[in-house]
């Protein structure tokens, strides 16, 4: 067991866990932040996607000991960010979700995409969202919601 100070959604959190514990399980079980989901445990589905140091990261394979002081943002905190809020709103407006279990990860991946690529093409979307599985296969509406969010965010701007 070891103690880690984590910066999550702008707050300091202290946990005492085995160093091998993946960030996903620290979030879900030690910090009771269950918005980040367990899907596969091998970084193949993206349900566990969070931002670590601004980068979309599969939290199921990142040991908590590797996080350091990089800021972590999860689905619970992404709404504080203007892009994050726009993506969440667009998801609701486009009625994307079905079972909804993968959507935390989809939204975190989409926010990372739009932060780097404000006006993504279909190919940009394929590449950035290409590692997130939705078993309901809500993909057409995910694509549409990303485009709607991009339009909303760039409205009146560049």
């Amino acid at each position, binding site marked *: *067991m070891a103690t880690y100070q984590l910066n999550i959604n702008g707050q300091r959190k202290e946990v005492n866990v*085995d160093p*091998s*514990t*993946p960030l996903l*399980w620290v979030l*879900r*079980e*030690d910090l*009771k*932040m*269950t*918005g*980040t*989901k*367990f*899907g*596969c*445990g*091998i970084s*193949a*589905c993206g*349900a566990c996607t969070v931002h670590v140091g601004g980068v979309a990261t599969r939290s199921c394979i990142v040991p908590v000991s590797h996080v350091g002081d990089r800021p972590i943002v*999860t*689905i*619970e905190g992404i*709404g504080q960010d203007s892009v994050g809020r726009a993506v*969440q709103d667009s*998801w*609701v407006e486009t*009625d*994307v*979700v*079905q*079972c*909804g*279990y*993968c*959507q*935390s990860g989809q*939204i975190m991946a989409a926010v990372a995409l739009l932060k780097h690529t404000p006006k993504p093409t*279909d190919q940009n*979307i*394929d590449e950035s*969202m*290409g*590692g*997130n*599985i*939705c*078993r*309901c*296969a*809500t*993909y*057409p*509406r*995910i*694509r549409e919601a990303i485009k709607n969010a991009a339009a909303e965010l760039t409205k009146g701007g560049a």
Partner: protein
Amino acid sequence: MAITSKDSDLNRRGFLRVSFAAAGGLIVSLYLEPRFALAQEGVTQSQTPPARKDFPPAAFVNIRPDGKIVIEVNRLEFGQGVQTSLPMLLADEMDADWGSVIANLAPAADVYKDPMFGIQMVGGSGSIAHSFQQYRDLGAKTRAMLVAAAAERWNTSPDQCRTEASVVHGPGGRSATYAELASDAAKKPVPTNVRLKGPTEFKLIGKKVKRLDSRSKCDGTLKFGLDLDLPGMKVAVVAHPPVFGAKVKRVVDDEARRIEGVRDVFEIPLAKGTGVAVVADKFWPAKQARSRLKIEWDMTEVHPADSAELWTMYKELSQKPGNVAVAKGDASAGDKIPAANRIVAEYEFPFLAHSPMEPLNTTIRFDGDRAEVWAGSQFQTVDQMAVAEVLGLKPDQVTFHTEMAGGGFGRRAVADSHVQREAATIAKRLRGTPVKLVWTREDDVQGGYYRPMHFHRVEVGIGADGMPAAWRHIIVGQSITADTPFASFVVKNGVDSTATEGAADTHYNFPNHHVWAHHPKVNVPVLWWRSVGHTHTAFVMETLIDELAQRAKMDPIAYRRKLLKPEAKKLLGPLALLETATAGWRNRLPNGHALGISCHESFGTGVACAVDVSIENKRPRIHRATLAVDCGLAVNPLSVESQFQAGVGFGLIQLMAKGAITLKDGRVEQKNFDGYVPPYIVDAPIAVDVHIVPSTEAPSGCGEPPVPVISPAVVNALARLTGKRYRSLPLVSI
């Protein structure tokens, strides 16, 4: 569509019970006698309903003092949208303010049983179809009681009152909110006969209504079963046998027990064989400990299934007729047709795992004379009974909470309740301590209960007009319902209709039509997988019909319309609509693109599908899919649209290069999403447009019908690009 419910089963067999909610307000409960008691405890179809027990204080509608209207949903929500669509039905008839409606997933109780199936369940795409009248009736009766209360208060007659947005308006500008009237309304008798709205009066039904659960699924606040956290709760994982049914011979657990946080390691019986449970404070130590177990397995009593051997056996079986599913006309008619006008086609379909995104899980606390269960279950009644049996309780001693589930596709509707039995076995030992059983993705991919492998052999004799004159069809695959209480409904003359549906009941007109089935016994547990038999039968039918259309040099839509029986309205309508909807692009595709067509009816819903496909990186790229659908009245067209837009993507796992579960020497060769790979965004259609045939007929299901049409449409397009016909799935190469 009936606009009154005077003849419905609800009025004849059900009654309303009204009581005050604990917090004040009105609760209206409708109790139903099941049409038939589904075989429970091994008892098959019973003529007399089971004796009525004391019902829990269950309810469908609760008008709270704050004006919120809580509507109980009698089924699992796992993506299909019933948590929104069922309350829409009730709220519309009740004239409730939709903005005040809160939907709640009901726990297991007799009152929440499916009016058709007689158990509480989701299946057969029946949620809306079976509860359409039920929920409208409940809404209309609740409204009538509120109006009666208002009329009494104002000393007027009910027909002088009207309702709108949770308010009763009376003569002289008087009005009262539903919340104000709730207590008085609860004392009113429940009307036996209420008028239901006609289609022109609907305010919600037939309108595009957004999901009630979107926001909480987008901000991380919604709790799925796996997210449950109870004080003192432990987490369990189970080491399952490497071959189905094998038993633990010896286990060395010293290393596992040394992991910090591990509380217990013990052998448990499973639905098939035995396993070793590890209980820990949290998931991670439990999983770590499981990987450190050294288990020696006893395989002496289990037959190791092997895909290669099964294909050989299935192919052999397909050379001779089996149990008769259809025998129409002359079975040897095809033999009289010249060889040049005959097609012999053989198809292979592998095992498929459902792999819902939320791994399987169940939480149970056993307190000696009571138990509490939290599970995302498609089969509350069955799972509740299984838990009770393991714990030595009666079902009514088991409180069963329905948790929101992250997908399921049939995987949470298992006749042997094996996950709940595992959890109950562990909870029994932990008496007093709640325990959450978690299946990892590896447990899920390797754990069986697959869409069964199937082999089809079809011999078609083509007439001089280019239409099929003789159709001989042999289907080989495990029976899903054999050895379950469902067999008595589903298996007739040795034919399991869940294997032949979509082929035996085809709407194509074949003058000579024969279908046989073989159901070999194989040591691999199998299960219904979204759209069940249609997953393979539609592929066979629609690829062969397409080949016939191509040979006849006919348009694929025109050929189908010509071959369909005139009474196949649920396909003819969508095909006509598809023709119009695709007029702008169907015959103007860029070079390197091709059109693929299919149509199929399942669960009472007819679907026609057109896709625009090219080949990119040696894989099909689906630029567009257009779907035309006849599902009767579309209760929530937005939900219908989303089921179809996404459901076709779900179906595409059949075409993924790694879309197969295979066995070698009894062991499943895939472990996780790296070996069994579902469609990603790049594999799904870029855009899907859905066109709904206008209808006022009773609604039919939309959960499963999207799945069967997509794979045949895509390979039909590929056939036009490559000149090859694709009959073995998965689609390893093009």
